[in-house]
């Protein structure tokens, strides 16, 4: 490996093929690579297979545009700003998206196994649930567990007896090793070192688990700066293949110490996501109606973004109104 290659957002999205298997950084409505997802919609990516430790607004943007065929996860929604993942739900109910449900910690076990090069990770969490009901293995029902796709495990999970301490039965969760990890990062160094602010979610594991990694960073900084505190970095340059520097790339999701979640924007999107027609209208305005992310942020306007800007000490905006009082 050498240093990661610098690309524009359009170039980076151009690397993704229809049918590719993707994972993303972030948590629900925080540090999602939304600019990348918008551009995937613009470029008309199809039949994507997503594994997400949890979904969020970006998932709904992709699902609403019909980009998603397979979705393995545990949750999709917009936190306080939109109860459900309407587009994924519609996809599941109408049969256009094949959904495979795991629990949140089972998803973590899967990405952790992938990160560590292990075929599985044991867990005793969420036993005795319908997640494990063999009748509800949707990938199997779709004929996807025949080994023809090396990225899809032969079984949704396995159960084995603990032979080491005789503690009983325990689950084995299959690794996830996607084709791509699409990572929105707080900072990337000029040699590719990656840092996340506040908490790191499962971003380090997601990077390690993927075959290729694209980092979309809010800013690039000298690697020597990040290396002054190496205990705070989550990935080294040799783990990163491509770097895109794109300010506001997580909007409308939040990016700690840069900007807060744009609650109004998400609420508005959530309303739009409730039908194909209203989604399309929304996408016409916010995705297809702008040429690129620079036009998108210009359309949002300075004052809107200024309001979202994080307080530099607290890491979140102190000027947005959040509640009813």
């Amino acid at each position, binding site marked *: 490996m050498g240093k990661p290659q610098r690309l524009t957002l359009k170039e980076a999205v151009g690397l993704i093929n229809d049918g590719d298997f993707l994972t993303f950084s972030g948590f629900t409505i925080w540090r999602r690579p939304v600019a990348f997802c918008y551009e995937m919609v613009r470029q008309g990516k199809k039949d994507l297979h997503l594994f997400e430790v949890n979904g969020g607004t970006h998932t709904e943007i992709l699902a609403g545009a019909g980009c998603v065929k397979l979705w393995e996860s545990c*949750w999709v929604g917009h936190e306080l700003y939109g109860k459900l993942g309407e587009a994924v739900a519609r996809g599941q109910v109408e049969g256009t998206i094949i959904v495979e449900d795991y629990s949140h910690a089972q998803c973590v076990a899967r990405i952790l196994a992938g990160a560590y090069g292990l075929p599985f990770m044991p867990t005793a969490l*969420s*036993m*005795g*649930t319908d997640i494990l009901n*063999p009748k509800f293995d949707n990938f199997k029902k779709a004929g996807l567990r025949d080994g023809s796709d090396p990225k899809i495990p032969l079984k949704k999970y396995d159960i084995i007896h603990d032979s080491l301490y005789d503690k009983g039965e325990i689950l084995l969760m299959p690794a996830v090793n996607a084709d791509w990890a699409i990572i929105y990062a707080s900072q990337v160094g000029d040699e590719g070192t990656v840092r996340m602010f506040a908490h790191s979610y499962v971003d380090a594991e997601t990077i390690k688990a993927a075959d290729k990694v694209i980092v979309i960073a809010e800013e690039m900084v000298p690697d020597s700066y990040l290396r002054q505190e190496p205990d705070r970095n989550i990935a080294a340059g040799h783990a990163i293949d491509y770097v895109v520097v794109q300010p506001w790339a997580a909007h409308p999701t939040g990016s700690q110490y840069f900007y807060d979640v744009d609650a109004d924007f998400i609420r508005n999107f959530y309303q739009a996501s409730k039908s194909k027609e209203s989604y399309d209208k929304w996408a016409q305005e916010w995705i297809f109606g702008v040429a690129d992310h620079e036009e998108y942020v210009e359309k949002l306007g300075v004052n809107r973004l200024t309001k979202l800007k994080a307080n530099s000490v607290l890491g979140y905006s102190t000027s947005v*109104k959040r*509640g009813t009082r």
Partner: protein
Amino acid sequence: MAKNYATDYKGVDLLAVAAAREVNDGDVVFAGTGLPMLAILLAQVNHAPNAVCIYEAGTVDGRALDLPTSVGDSRCAWQASIAAGLTETFYGQLHCGYVDLGFLGGAEIDKYGNVNTTVVGDYSAPSKRFTGSGGNPDINSYAKRTVFIMVQEKRRFKEHVDYITSPGWRIPKWPSGEYVHRREVYGKFYQGGPSAVITNMGVFRFDDEGIMYLDTVHPGFTAEQVKDNCLFDLNISRCKGETERPTVEEIDLLYKRVDPEGIFLP
């Protein structure tokens, strides 16, 4: 000192206060977004200053200056003891066995405490999809005690939930799917299970068979009213009486310290 009970409070206030009372000082609590946050935060500023709160996105014992709107919120990391990620919270804390109490919500629950947050109808051809499990079943399966905070509606308290997202006291043992006691499924991994369900009408607990019963009924309701708001045949014979009302201090803390912006409270 006699307690100074509030006379003017809303259903959601009592719900938060009753839930907060489930926290013992020093408990390690794993809480989800929403009312569970209000409950643990109220407990910390009221009677349980040494309770530790874990949010699944990665923070341990944070001391948010402003109420987080999500467990992934940067507000959760303020003055935390640890800020890491989900591997730390789910495996390094929860699966490790540190967690005394889980605070969760749910869309539907059955008499065994099985909770559904996934679909309405047959999972293979659902009529509606909810958000999905999130960390609900994980926390519920490994906390020593779990408290569910829910809205009391007849359609939400069912004989059997459509889909067992989160495991109660009688659960299927796979691959056969035979219903057995939770202990049989978890073996030596058994930590505990649902200990209470708190709604806007009452506090529910579970008997030795793992069946839900009404423990106390909130002021203004009768046990029969609660029973009428369940689709299953709720045992109200063990009802101890009225749920203790919120005190003036608790309501004050709730509105002035915990959620002054009105994020979860009206």
